[in-house]
């Protein structure tokens, strides 16, 4: 069974952390992943940096840009990760935009992910219908779970379609926004969380965008299986460095 599916069966709320690979320094990737696992994080999204990350706000874009300046490439990331399964056992997901994956070759990319022990992919600008028609078979051949996003504007019909072709979890974008935009959830978000929870989808949901601390994490996980923190974690890395990872995580999970 895929590590993601196994993790989703655990009887607990899951904390997933996103970071941009190659930031703050090119070779921090493995150390960040190991530190996150040791600190009690359940799942990690490794950001493959892209020059033009449309769905991301300023924090993640800035870390992506710096990672590229540091020299990060798809090849280098795969090299850094090649022995990662000797030390890390939690689910690992690569999150990246479609163009770098397309240039690497979708099948070659998936094959390398499988060899390394990557469990899933999140590709925000690979639309669900294109995936379904052209790439689903490849992802399945290499045992990769592809994770789709839904937003407060996504129609019920489309949510059901996304649920039907997903086999891991659904990434629930908390509000109509790019990453790192909001702070705290209001009435509009919580009613959206409730609405989705009541749909009884076959895939569990994990909420991302706008989760930055213990309060927003607890609020989100009242309605969902887990929550994802990205921008807030990167800000913390920028300000306090790798040594602060366990403190950051323990403040979320306290």
């Amino acid at each position, binding site marked *: 069974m895929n590590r993601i599916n196994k993790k989703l069966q655990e009887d607990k709320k899951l904390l997933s952390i996103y970071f941009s690979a190659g930031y703050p320094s090119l070779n921090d990737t493995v150390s960040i992943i190991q530190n996150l696992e040791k600190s009690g994080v359940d799942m990690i999204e490794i950001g493959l940096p*892209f*020059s*033009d*990350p*449309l*769905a991301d*706000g*300023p924090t993640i*874009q*800035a870390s992506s*840009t710096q990672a*590229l300046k540091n020299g990060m*490439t*798809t*090849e280098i990331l795969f090299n850094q990760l090649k022995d990662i399964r000797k030390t890390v056992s939690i689910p690992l997901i690569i999150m990246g*935009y*479609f*163009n*770098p*994956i*397309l*240039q*690497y070759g979708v099948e070659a990319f998936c094959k390398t992910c499988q060899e390394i022990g990557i469990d899933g992919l999140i590709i*925000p*600008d*690979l*639309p*669900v219908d*294109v995936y379904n028609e052209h790439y689903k078979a490849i992802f399945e051949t290499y045992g990769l779970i592809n994770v*789709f*996003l*839904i*937003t407060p*504007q*996504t*129609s019920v019909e*489309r949510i059901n379609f996304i649920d039907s072709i997903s086999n891991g979890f659904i990434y629930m*974008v908390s509000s*109509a*926004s*790019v990453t790192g*935009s909001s702070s705290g959830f209001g009435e509009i978000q919580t009613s959206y969380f409730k609405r989705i929870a009541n749909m009884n989808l076959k895939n569990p949901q994990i909420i991302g965008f706008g989760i930055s601390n213990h309060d927003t994490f607890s609020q989100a996980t009242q309605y969902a299986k887990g929550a994802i923190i990205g921008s807030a974690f990167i800000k913390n890395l920028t300000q306090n460095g790798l040594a602060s990872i366990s403190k950051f995580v323990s403040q979320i999970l306290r």
Partner: protein
Amino acid sequence: MTYNINDKGYYGEFGGAYIPEMLYPNVEELRQNYLKIMAEPSFKKEFDQLLKDYVGRPSPLYFAKRLSDKYNTKIYLKREDLNHTGAHKVNNTIGQILMAKRLGKTRIIAETGAGQHGVATATVCALMGMQCIVYMGEIDIARQAPNVARMKMLGTEVRPALSGSRTLKDATNEAIRDWINNPVDTHYIIGSVVGPHPYPDMVARFQSVVSEEIQWQLKDKEGTTKPNYVIACVGGGSNAAGAFYHYLEDTEVNLIAVEAAGKGIDSGESAATSALGREGIIHGSKTLLMQTNDGQITEPYSISAGLDYPGVGPMHAHLYTSGRAEFISITDDEAMTAGLELSQLEGIIPAIESSHAFAVLAQKKFQPKDIVIMNLSGRGDKDLQNYIDYFKL
């Protein structure tokens, strides 16, 4: 084989809508409605009326006698430079502002590089009393002060794009992010035949008035609707899309797309996407784009701010790979020389973008009987400082 868009939103293998889910409702709303709205008699009437009375269409098709004598062929200029705001861009912004109104939108966003599309958008927003925000790279804001001032005078807020390379592609990213954050009340007026489906098709249709007019204007003057050549410059490709549109399927008409070679194709400072690009995804569209081996989008260069876009619209990617259009790239120097020549032979100072198209006349041999249509996409007022610096005027 068709050279126009298919019902799935692709030109051959190019196009589509490679967008994050956050944008899906906005783009889908547009996709479901744009053809229906454009077909409404009341829409057509309002669009045509504004093009006539406000923009000043039809733009003349002018026989350039001295230029024709020099190159020993029959050259006609399609005078998009005489439109209100000085370029073809306004054809599209008039269409999209009417579209936005019918979709019930109250807030307009746009991206701009040189500021031409920004000014054309600010203009129609003033005309319709709509709130307007234009994203512009911080570097471009510094380079294009007169257009920034025009937009402000028209009541538009110009927001600097501070991310990435702080130029057109980043302004586009920022506009897309704004749309993600404001999915309900906002319409995004894209300025070229780029972006996710249905934008390339919608913008091409609004610009297609150019070739529609060429057909009947040429019929009046030459007794035929068909020229031998249509020549237009391509950055994203909207003026070329408009000039080519009604000739796409008519292979007797040769189409020539002119890209900016900058300081030379191999100089590392170029914007010739067909020569230097590979298939990939940019701003929601599968097309040809300039990128690193690793799939990072690179920053192009041209002396002309309107041509330095790292991609090209999916229609043009298809015209290039299918061989339907010939692609020629022109250096900064060749374009500037051609701009000076047009000024002195015909008394018309062209935009530097358009000057690129004119440089083809010196490179390609035409027959005396050939009818060559040059799409004169914009006037040179905005480029005066560039011409001054280049020619030490």
